[in-house]
């Protein structure tokens, strides 16, 4: 399994190199237009005309950092007592791709997310972002480095209004949290930014409602809105459409698709709905009992014996060896 993973990684690295042909090379990344975008982002992070996701931090476009895959996990492992929830998972994620992470319940998908975003600390192994080891960093540090996360169980600020939830994210990005003496409402640009994102997720008409009073579907949308407002490099969605009504699912999917169109962003998506994965994913990795058991193009992986058997509950070890 380990050796297999290694070859997979190199194959991925090759495809990444293909992608990085001259037209998309580092020279293009530091072109003036991009520089201007960064400067504009620094001047004001918002304004009604801003694209759906705010410009990434200019430092993220550092050509040196670009040589690495944006995110890598090396032998990432966590043990809870005797139980190994994530088992030596090595994987690299390239810029501008959407990777779906699938696996049966209890396979360790959310735990793997928790290790990457920092809610859990690894027992063994490393998490590397842009070539920098972030394994020992705290959650807020990782967030400021560019890892953003939407949660499976809705995880919002329940007594605050919808607008305030998103405004808080914009405020964190503007690094204004320790400002004690200005009025929060005088930072109009943060409110505009929040309302812009809310319009994107179709929640602007509910901006003044308290979050705890929102229906479940709207809370899910707000969860995504917080992630969009954060504008991270790596966006992690943990079952974004879970528990949503049929007519609300497309709103979220369209948002993810739009985010995906921005080639600076990398999306990790835990999802069970195969049709969703087929439309969105560039690549699928399969976790089973905490271990990475399959990795590749959606069509191949979905039809592979490993996935079929993992979902149907047959013994996977035979499949991997077979």
């Amino acid at each position, binding site marked *: 399994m380990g050796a297999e993973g290694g070859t997979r990684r190199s194959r991925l690295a090759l495809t990444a190199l293909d992608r990085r042909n001259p037209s998309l090379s580092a020279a293009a990344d530091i072109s003036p237009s991009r520089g201007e975008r960064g400067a504009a982002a620094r001047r004001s992070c918002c304004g009604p005309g801003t694209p759906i996701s705010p410009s990434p931090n200019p430092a993220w476009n550092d050509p040196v950092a670009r040589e690495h895959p944006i995110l890598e996990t090396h032998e990432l492992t966590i043990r809870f007592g005797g139980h190994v929830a994530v088992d030596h998972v090595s994987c690299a994620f390239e810029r501008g791709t959407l990777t779906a992470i699938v696996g049966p319940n209890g396979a360790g998908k959310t735990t793997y997310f928790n290790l990457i975003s920092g809610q859990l600390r690894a027992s063994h192994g490393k998490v590397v972002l842009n070539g920098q080891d972030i394994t020992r960093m705290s959650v807020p540090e990782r967030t400021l480095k560019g890892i953003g996360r939407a*949660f499976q169980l809705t995880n919002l600020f329940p007594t605050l209004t919808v607008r305030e939830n998103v405004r808080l994210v914009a405020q964190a990005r503007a690094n204004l949290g320790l400002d004690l003496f200005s009025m*929060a409402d005088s930072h109009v640009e943060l409110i505009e930014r929040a309302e812009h994102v809310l319009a994107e997720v179709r929640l602007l008409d509910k901006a003044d409602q308290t979050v705890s009073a929102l229906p479940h579907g709207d809370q899910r949308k707000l969860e995504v809105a917080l992630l969009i407002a954060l504008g991270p490099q790596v966006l992690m969605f943990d079952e974004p459409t879970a528990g949503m009504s049929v007519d609300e699912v497309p709103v979220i999917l369209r948002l993810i698709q739009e985010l995906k169109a921005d080639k600076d962003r990398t999306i990790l998506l835990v999802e069970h709905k195969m049709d969703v994965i087929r439309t969105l994913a560039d690549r699928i990795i399969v976790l089973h009992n905490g271990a990475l058991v399959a990795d590749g193009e959606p069509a191949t992986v979905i039809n592979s014996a490993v996935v079929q058997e993992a979902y149907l509950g047959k013994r996977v070890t035979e499949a991997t060896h077979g």
Partner: protein
Amino acid sequence: MLMKLLSGDRPASPVLTVLLLVILIGLAFAPFLFPGSKPLETAARICIFIVLVASYDLLIGYTGIVSFAHTMFFGLGAYGTALGLSLGGASFAAAGLGALGGVALAAVLALAIGLFSLRVKAIFFAMVTLAIASAFAVLVSQLSFLTGGEDGLNYKIPRELTPAFKLFAEPVLGLRIDGKVLSYYLIFGVALVLFLTLLRIVNSPFGRVLKAVRDNSFRAEAIGYKVVRYRTAATVLSAVMAAMAGVLLALWLRYTGPATTLSMEIMVDILLMVVIGGMGTMYGAVLGAVIFILAQTYLQSLMGLAEQATAGIPLLPDLVAPDRWLLWLGVLFVLSVYFFPTGIVGRLRAGKA
């Protein structure tokens, strides 16, 4: 201009606006409106407690931190000032220096408590603060050569703040402006500034983060706020404000002792005032402090009147005898918590919406 002073935090209820205006006018003109020493004493206590309760609300109502060490910080400010005045003589410089020392010590202690213990669960933090506050109270009563022990410290305050000092030869609006009145206005002015500062802090970007931390500290971390840093900052700010309230108390009473600053009873009073007024609203601190202190001061005399009025009726006079004032205070609290679970301000604001 007014909105700026209130940091955009409107009372958002006509009744509340009227109540706050009445309180503001009452306190601003207390020496003229209510002559005599007892009303002035009460007004000064109200001013001091508004700051103390508001600073506690910053912790419990806005950040969701339960601390029992608030009276310790209050006491540090008071003892600092008291020591300054008793060791350095009755000058403003000595009072200022002592106050500065007390406030600085409160800040350092709050920082240490915050950094060491805000990572643990809320209940453990509450226990830690309870232990530290009790230890501090014991320490103060044991170090009697410095603090006067249980007897506390009596000291002289600058002459300009004593009744012997007359600002004008002639009375103004029928009131002789003596040092006591000046002293009251010093307290009123400082308390007003401190309260408006707290109001600004809770409506600042920082204050908004505190609310987010209270609501969901896990998510606050995940959007990039270092929660321990914010909790510690809130603890330090609230300790500094409490210590400043302590400075005012020391100047007003010309006495500082464990019973007036450090006792657990005061801690419970503060908690009750926050709950009665409404947690998470600065205006709640105002209403809570006013109602509680008025009840504490005047319920007994009111009940004395009631006893006389009901003298002919059997049983009733016994029930309303002034000795039973604590019972009725208790009943008042139970009723207010029952009918206003979100506090008076919470109730008034909800009623408007």
